[in-house]
């Protein structure tokens, strides 16, 4: 981080909803002075090409994230449990047809 970081506006994470009913996706981050400013900046930076119909902005420091140290205990145990995937279940023909 640069030295004049204190002068910078806080960082915000931007999420947008591509379509009605779709989950919000992370678009990226930006600097803004407050929430309204973050919302407007997000509109201009991330959804000006018709990408979405909704925006969330969240102060980056309000996000609790897993750390690289968590990797072992969080993610490794899942790597040898293929039965948690749905591909072992056969899909009934009627359902298949419809999709």
């Amino acid at each position, binding site marked *: 981080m640069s030295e004049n970081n204190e002068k910078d*506006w806080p960082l915000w994470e931007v999420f947008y909803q591509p379509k009605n009913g779709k989950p919000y996706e992370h678009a990226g981050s*930006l*600097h*803004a*002075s*407050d929430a*309204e*400013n973050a919302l*407007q*900046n997000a*509109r*201009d*930076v991330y959804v*000006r090409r018709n990408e979405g119909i909704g925006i969330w902005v969240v102060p980056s420091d309000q996000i609790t994230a897993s750390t690289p140290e968590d990797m072992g205990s969080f993610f490794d145990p899942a790597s040898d449990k293929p039965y948690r995937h749905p591909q072992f279940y056969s899909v009934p023909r009627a359902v298949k047809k419809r999709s």
Partner: protein
Amino acid sequence: MNTTKELSVKESKIAYLLRLADDRLILGQRMSEWCGHGPVLEEDLALANMALDLIGHASSLYAYAAEVEDEGRDEDHFAYFRDDYEFTNLQLCELPKGDFAFTIARQFLFSSFSYFQYQQLKEAKDEQFAGMIDKHFKEVKYHLRHSRDWVLKLGDGTDESKKRMQDAFDELWMYSGELFYIDGVDEMMLAEGNGADLLSFKDEWKKLVEDTLKEATLNVPDWDQFMMTGSRTGMHTEHLGHMLAQMQFLRRSHPDADWK
């Protein structure tokens, strides 16, 4: 000039469309000067977006004026092949971009005025015109929201931002009177059901401006002070000519160039 009284309906309509278009082209061009010079990356994009919105509005209004005129000219003719005295944009729009506070104060005055003006124009009898305005209106609302928000932040911000914001409004004030300039062109269009009745929202506009400035802890300058006039009949500040020289020289050097 009293000659406007003698204009036909068609001539008035073209003049009216050109006034609307000129305001937006000139302001958009001014605002585009911020591209790459914005105070922060995010605002740089916001300003460039607004500049493009305004130039887009101008482009479709010019194209429509050309259609009404029906003499085989296009929007480029109006933008690039007229001289400063033929432009009828507000002087407010042509002033140099100044600092960020100046740009924002001007945008706020212009967008708030456009907001009321477009609210009426989008109900115009001419459906093609009304449809165009209705489409632009959404962007106008955003410009107003964005610029108003900055007026509040900078006005009620640090000592320096407050001073710059106040200076900007003080300097711009004498160019605000022209927003409500009315002549035969306006009257003709209003009578045809295709114009905005500026006087009908003047008080509402003033109140919006006053309320915003007060909320931003700024002083409201004197409405009765000296006001500039003349731009709707082609009288401009020294700044417009310089700007047009820069904006038009390439097109005029290669008048027959196209994208093919």
